[in-house]
C-alpha cells in the first residue's frame, strides 16, 4: 500500500522536476562500466559471522577472537549496525526447513544513486567510479542528514562522543581493494556466499541462478533495481520482506529531492527573477508613494523604506 503511494508521489515529483528544469537531476559522475559489487547468496550463507570479525579487524574496530563469533546465541534478536560494527548477520526462520535457518548479512548497499551522497551538506560522501560509496571524515560536520536520507538506514553515529564523532558504514574496503585485495568479508567467507565481481556480471549470474534453480530461489534480485540499483545485491529462497529488507520503490532515492533542488536553482534563474521582480515592485511602489507625498505634501519621514 505504502509502496504504491510512493510511486504516485514519485510520479508527481518527477513531473514537477520536468516543469522545473529540463536537466536531469544529480548524476555528477559517470560510473565505470566495470564497477564492482557483491552478490549475497543467502542460500549459501551459514551464519558463521566470520565476516563480522573480518570487517571489524580490517577497520580497526575492537573485536574479540574469531572463535567467539561462532556463538549463534546473538541471533536471538534482530541486530542492526552500530558505532562498533559496519556489518551484521541476522538469522531468520526458514519456512521450508526449520533446521536450516536463513542468514542475512547486512551492510551499506552502495547504491548506484546514493541518497547520502546527494544529501550530505558538505559532500563528505562520494560515489566512487568503481561503485563504492565512501565517507570523508575530514569534511563531515556530524549533521546526520545522511542517516535521515539513507533508504536502508545504514549509517551509524557515535552518540557518545563529544569530540570528533564518526559516521560509520561499510566502505567496501576501498583501502584493501586499492592494494589488490578483496573486501575483508568476501575474503573470509567460507562459502563464498558473498560473490565479489563486476556488477554487470553479478546481475547476470544472479539471474542465471534464480532461473536455473527456481525451486531454491524466489524470482527477485534484491538490489538489482531497488532505489535505482545497488552495488550489493541479494538472492534468496525467502521473500525479502520476511528477511526484513525494506520494500523500496525502484526510483533512485535522491531523485525527487534533487529534481526540486535543481528546479528551484535552475542556473539561479528563479531566485534572480524573484529578486528582479521584487526590485521592480519596490521601485514602483516607492514612486507611487513619492507621488502621493509630493501631491499631498505629506511630511512622512523618508528615512525608512526604499532609499
Amino acid at each position: 500500500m505504502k509502496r504504491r503511494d510512493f510511486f504516485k508521489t514519485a510520479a508527481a515529483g518527477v513531473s514537477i522536476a520536468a516543469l522545473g528544469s529540463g536537466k536531469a537531476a544529480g548524476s555528477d559522475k559517470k560510473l565505470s562500466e566495470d564497477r564492482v559489487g557483491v552478490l549475497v547468496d543467502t542460500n549459501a550463507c551459514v551464519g558463521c559471522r566470520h565476516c563480522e570479525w573480518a570487517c571489524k579487524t580490517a577497520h580497526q574496530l575492537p573485536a574479540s577472537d574469531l572463535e567467539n563469533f561462532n556463538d549463534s546465541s546473538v541471533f536471538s534478536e534482530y541486530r542492526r549496525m552500530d558505532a562498533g560494527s559496519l556489518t551484521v548477520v541476522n538469522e531468520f526462520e526458514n519456512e521450508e526447513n526449520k533446521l536450516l535457518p536463513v542468514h542475512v548479512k547486512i551492510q551499506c548497499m552502495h547504491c548506484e544513486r546514493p541518497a547520502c551522497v546527494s544529501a550530505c551538506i558538505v559532500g563528505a560522501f562520494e560515489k566512487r567510479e568503481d561503485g563504492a560509496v565512501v565517507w570523508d571524515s575530514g569534511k563531515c560536520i556530524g549533521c546526520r542528514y545522511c542517516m535521515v536520507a539513507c533508504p536502508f538506514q545504514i549509517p551509524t553515529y557515535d552518540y557518545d562522543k563529544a569530540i570528533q564523532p564518526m559516521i560509520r558504514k561499510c566502505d567496501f574496503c576501498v583501502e584493501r581493494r586499492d592494494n589488490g585485495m578483496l573486501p575483508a568479508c568476501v575474503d573470509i567467507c567460507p562459502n563464498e556466499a558473498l560473490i565479489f565481481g563486476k556488477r554487470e556480471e553479478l546481475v547476470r549470474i544472479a539471474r542465471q541462478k534464480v532461473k536455473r534453480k527456481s525451486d531454491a530461489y524466489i524470482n527477485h534480485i534484491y538490489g538489482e533495481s531497488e532505489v535505482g540499483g545497488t552495488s550489493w545485491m541479494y538472492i534468496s529462497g525467502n521473500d525479502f520482506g520476511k528477511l526484513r529488507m525494506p520494500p523500496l520503490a525502484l526510483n533512485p532515492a535522491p531523485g525527487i529531492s534533487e529534481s526540486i533542488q535543481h528546479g528551484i536553482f535552475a542556473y539561479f534563474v528563479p531566485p534572480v527573477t524573484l529578486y528582479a521582480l521584487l526590485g521592480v515592485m519596490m521601485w514602483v511602489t516607492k514612486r507611487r508613494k513619492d507621488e502621493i507625498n509630493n501631491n499631498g505634501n505629506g511630511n512622512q519621514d523618508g528615512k525608512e523604506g526604499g532609499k
Partner: protein
Amino acid sequence: MKKIFLIIVPFLMISLVIASGSLFGTKIQLPVEKEKTVRQDKKNPKQKIRMPEDHSKQGIKCTTCHEGEYPTKNDPMLRACLRESVLSEFNYVGEGPGEILIDGMSQNYGGVRFSHKVHAQMSAMSTGCTGCHHYNTSVPILKCADCHNKDRMREDVSIPDLKAAFHRQCMNCHKQWSGENGCNTQCHVRKGESKPQKTDKLLSHPPLTEPGKMQWETNYEQGRIVTFFHDEHNKLFKIDCKTCHKQDNCVKCHDKTKQTESGSKYKKSLSEHHKPCISCHNENNCQKCHRDGEISPFNHGKSTGWTLKSYHSKLACAKCHGNQMPYKKLDRNCTNCHKNFRTGFNHRVTGLVLSDTHKDMDCKSCHANQDFSKPPVCSECHDDKSYPSSRPGKK
C-alpha cells in the same frame, strides 16, 4: 542473378532446417536467452576446464556445453556450469575410496580427513553420488579443483571458488545436522596441530533397516487409516531409495539439535503431504489409500486375477510391464512374453515333465489355439479314456 540465387538457396535451406527442427522439437536447439560466454581465467591458464576425451561417445550434444556453433581452443564459448545436466558416469557406493585426506591448502588451513565411504553410503539414501560429484562426463572422476578455482579473486565468478565449493558441500548438511559452523569443531584441525589423526569414526555406515508396513491414522471419519507397505515398494517393486528419499539427510535419523519434534509440528500443506505418493500414483480416488481398516499387502493374483507363481514372483515388475508408469495390463498369453519359448523350452518349469510320447509332439496338439493359460484337459485328445491313469509325464 544466378549467383545471388546460389547464395540465397543454401541460406533458405539452412533456415528451413532450423525452423522445422525447432518446430518438431528435435535435435537442433536454439538458445532461448543468449547467455554471455564464460571466459577462461587469464590469470591462471592452468585452471582450465578440461574437456573429457570421450565426449562424443557419451552422446552429449555440443550445444549442451558450447554456446556458439564453432568453438575454438582460444574461445571455447562455454556456457556457465551446467551442474546436474552433464552427468553420464555413475558409480556404485562400494567403488569409491574409504577415506580421503583433503589438505591441498594445508599451508593455510588444517587438513580435513573425509570419510568418503560413509558419506557415499549415506548419500545412497538421498542424493546419490551426484549430490557431490555433480559434473562428470567420463570415467576418471574429475577433481573439484579442475573447475573450481583456488583463487577467490578471479574473472569468472559464476561458479564458486575451491574453498567455497568444498564448504558448501559439507556445510549444507553439517549445519543442519549439528547447527554448528565453526571451523575446528567438525572438520579442520587447528593450524599448528599435527595432521589429523585417523579418527575412530565409523568407516562404514551400519546397514539401514527398512521398515515393513507403515500405518498412519488421519483425522477423517471415513477412510481413517492409510497403510503403506514400504517393503513392497522397495523389494517387490524394486524402487530405488532415492526416488522417494530425495532430500533426506542425516538429520532425519540423527538429530543432534533435537528439533525434529517441533519440526514435525510444522503443518504440511495438503499437496505437500501427498506429494510422495502422488508423484507416482496419479490418483484422484481418496479411498484408494484412505480406508477404514488396514489394507492387505499387494497380491498380484487378487489385484489382477493372475497369480504369480514360482519364477514370475521373483521378477521385477518392469521385466514384464516395462518401464512405463503406470503399468499396463498385459496380455495373459504366455507367448506374449515368451516369444521364443519353443527352442529349448523346458516344459519342467510349468511343473510338468513331459513323457517321451508327448515330448515330441507339437505344442498345438495339446494347447489348442496356442492358449497356454489353462492346462489342457486329457479328454480333449483321449476320447476313449484309454489314457494312463496317471498323467502324461512326471510331476
